[in-house]
């Protein structure tokens, strides 16, 4: 075991240490805290590169590509609960991506947040986030993964609510935490189930781990009450966690609101890394997701993977549709992120780990590029986020425009030169060949069309035409300052943009059908270079189709928004003129928030009120009834005492008293009357004696 594997824990520990030290820093120690955070992240990046090269070396030498370190944590009963970390290709590639993108965003933040009062705290939270995210990546135990996963959620909460004085930010932070926690609780139940089935939560433990053959076989064979294999149930529950974190339908509602956070946060957490953690989780437990009962059914997808595919495909189209009608520059990107995450899920479902992960990596680069570009635009436009009030920025912010264009083309999947094309193409190709249904392919294609369309719309609104910022500000009577002119951002912000833009282009090279380096790296094989890869069944037609779709989307976007320059911020959208009804539905995000508001949330508060009522009136009522009964009884006892016992006793006493009084009258106190009695008695006695003597 090499040094880097033994000390892999240092990668998350360094940012954690930086977070701890910045937490103690004073508010004015800006340079110190930024340097600490960036330094720690840089060191982590270097270590990640070490880890990456270690895996590369292992693969080229034909050694096993996965190494784990497990350690006991605490004991319960007769066993020890163990945690551990691992280094395998998936970990290595994620480590490099997260530390690299993270480092760039840290640098970018020094520019973006330069004027914020709570600069040091921002870097504290960012470092904590990086530590937790890296913990998710290296975990070799579902428990450790879950713990870091929750900490990631916490930092996301803290950073979304960073501008806590804005009520909307505080509400968005709470919404994000709670929505993801719904998924996390399903995840927790799945984890408990897995623990009880497999007896361990370590992924790999020399044959005894829960993702290894013996445990999987047992779980597949174990049927639950409703005839579903335990493995399927567990996989679905864990997937629910991923749905929450990755903003899949129906738990996607938090992600667009999360844009209340500072833009670097949106770029790092809500575009590149944390939201991708759900995809990473599915990839990590892929053996469980894909566990079959026997070899015969190995060709068809498992129930779990079918669910993953369908959720992903639906999310991809659903979010893309909403993105078409949004006007906030960050919200468009947020819905785009949701949509792309759907793609990744679909890719995992139809094509396996490599397909989904490749899109994750390329997306991380170009989407963080887009977000940071958007941040640069917002910064340049003095905190304006509405695309209708921008315009004409291509000349004023040339670097931002160029890099943004690269990101946009990569996201649309512009053929051959951009990474997004190759990764999206791999997904579509896999979807085409899916054994269950062709529909995900069509949905994916539709999503690609929409993506090209809304990105074109956004770019036309933001960068072309004339600036509508000034006119808007002049219209506001309160604006007594000179109308602000947009300006290019400082180099600390543009430098990461350029670096990311080049990555967004170059990265495509590692995943072409001719040189599927990424695919073979993840499966731990040495890559082979062959142009014949293009000629494989179905690849060229799919490439052609997707190229056509992208061009169609771009052309549609130009048709609606590019033909004539947009003149005023208050004009209705071109689509709105065409189809106002549909546009309004899309603008209101299919009324999902309202739906939840009127169902789940309302039921929940009704239950809460009910429970409170139960406490106050029913339980307390029973208690009060009992106590009132007791009080009544005691009242009864008291009245018996007062009116029955006491009265009769008093009566008895009175009788004695009156008779005593009667008798007392005899005792008049006059001696003579007593004597008189004595005299009468004496006389009577004498008479009796005389009378008796005579007879």
């Amino acid at each position: 075991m090499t040094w880097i594997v033994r000390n892999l824990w240092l990668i998350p520990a360094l940012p954690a240490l930086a977070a701890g030290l910045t937490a103690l820093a004073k508010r004015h120690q800006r340079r110190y805290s930024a340097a600490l955070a960036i330094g720690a992240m840089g060191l982590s990046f270097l270590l990640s590169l070490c880890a990456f090269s270690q895996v590369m070396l292992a693969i080229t030498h034909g050694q096993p590509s996965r190494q784990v370190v497990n350690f006991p944590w605490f004991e319960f009963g007769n066993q020890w609960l163990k945690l551990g970390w691992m280094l395998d290709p998936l970990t290595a590639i994620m480590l490099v991506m997260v530390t690299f993108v993270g480092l760039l965003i840290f640098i970018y933040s020094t520019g973006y947040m330069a004027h914020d009062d709570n600069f040091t705290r921002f870097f504290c939270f960012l470092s904590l986030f990086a530590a937790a995210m890296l913990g998710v990546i290296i975990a070799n135990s579902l428990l450790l993964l879950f713990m870091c996963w929750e900490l990631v959620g916490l930092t996301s909460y803290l950073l979304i609510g960073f501008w806590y004085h804005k009520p909307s930010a505080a509400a968005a932070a709470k919404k994000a935490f709670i929505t993801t926690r719904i998924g996390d609780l399903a995840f927790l139940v799945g984890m408990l189930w897995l623990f009880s089935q497999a007896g361990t939560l370590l992924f790999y433990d020399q044959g005894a781990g829960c993702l290894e053959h013996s445990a999987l076989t047992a779980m597949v064979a174990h049927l639950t009450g409703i005839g579903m294999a335990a493995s399927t149930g567990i996989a679905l529950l864990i997937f629910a966690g991923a749905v929450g974190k990755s903003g899949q339908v129906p738990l996607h509602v938090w992600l667009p609101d999360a844009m209340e956070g500072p833009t670097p946060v949106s770029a790092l957490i809500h575009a590149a890394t944390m939201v991708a953690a759900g995809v990473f989780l599915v990839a990590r437990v892929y053996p469980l997701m894909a566990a079959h009962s026997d070899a015969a059914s190995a060709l068809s997808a498992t129930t779990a993977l079918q669910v993953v595919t369908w959720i992903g495909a639906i999310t991809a189209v659903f979010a893309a549709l909403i993105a078409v009608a949004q006007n906030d520059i960050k919200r468009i990107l947020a819905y785009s992120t949701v949509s792309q995450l759907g793609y990744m899920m679909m890719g995992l479902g139809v094509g396996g780990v490599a397909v989904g992960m490749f899109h994750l990596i390329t997306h991380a680069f170009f989407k963080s590029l887009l977000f940071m570009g958007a941040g640069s635009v917002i910064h340049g436009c003095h905190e304006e986020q509405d695309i209708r009030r921008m315009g004409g920025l291509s000349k004023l912010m040339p670097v931002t425009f160029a890099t943004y264009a690269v990101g946009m083309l990569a996201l649309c999947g512009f053929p051959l030169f951009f990474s997004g094309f190759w990764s999206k193409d791999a997904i579509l190709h896999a979807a085409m060949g899916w054994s269950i249904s062709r529909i995900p392919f069509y949905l994916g294609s539709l999503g690609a069309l929409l993506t090209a369309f809304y990105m074109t719309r956004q770019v036309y609104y933001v960068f072309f035409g004339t600036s509508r910022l000034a006119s808007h500000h002049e219209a506001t009577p309160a604006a007594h300052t000179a109308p602000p002119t947009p300006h290019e951002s400082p180099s600390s912000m543009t430098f990461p943009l350029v670096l990311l833009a080049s990555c967004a282009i170059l990265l495509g090279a590692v995943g072409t059908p001719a040189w599927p380096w990424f695919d073979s790296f993840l499966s731990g094989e040495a890559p082979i270079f062959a142009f014949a890869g293009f000629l494989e069944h179905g690849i060229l037609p799919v490439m052609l189709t997707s190229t056509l779709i992208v061009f169609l989307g771009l052309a549609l976007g130009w048709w609606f928004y590019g033909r004539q320059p947009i003149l005023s911020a208050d004009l209705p959208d071109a689509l709105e003129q065409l189809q106002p009804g549909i546009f309004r539905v899309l603008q209101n995000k299919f009324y999902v928030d309202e739906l939840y508001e009127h169902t789940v949330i309302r039921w929940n508060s009704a239950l809460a009120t009910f429970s409170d009522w139960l406490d106050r009136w029913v339980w307390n009522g029973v208690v009060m009834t009992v106590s009132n009964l007791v009080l009544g009884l005691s009242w009864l006892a008291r009245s018996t005492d007062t009116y029955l016992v006491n009265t009769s006793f008093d009566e008895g006493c009175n009788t004695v008293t009156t008779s005593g009084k009667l008798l007392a009258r005899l005792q008049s106190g006059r001696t003579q009357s007593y004597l008189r009695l004595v005299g009468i008695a004496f006389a009577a006695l004498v008479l009796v004696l005389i009378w008796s003597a005579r007879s």
Partner: protein
Amino acid sequence: MTPLSSCLMLSALLFSVGFAGVLMRRNAILILIGIELMLNAANLNFIAFWRYGSAPEALTGVMFVIFSIGVAAAEAAVGLALIISIYRHRKTTQIDRINSMRG
């Protein structure tokens, strides 16, 4: 009529006079005098029974009477003292006014 029975008749008369005085009079001093009369009636009986009894030479009757007179003198002294004390307290010797022993 024998001398004994005439003595007894006299004594009974004397006793009745004393008793009537005790019952009828309202003045405490007169009541006390009535009591003395009754006592002397008893003394007279003693003397009579001794003089005309079986052993007149034994002087028993005289001894009784001397004692009795002594006791009566003491009694009269105590009785008068009480009456004076009551008189001081109540400014009266009328016996029917003094009924504080009433129950």
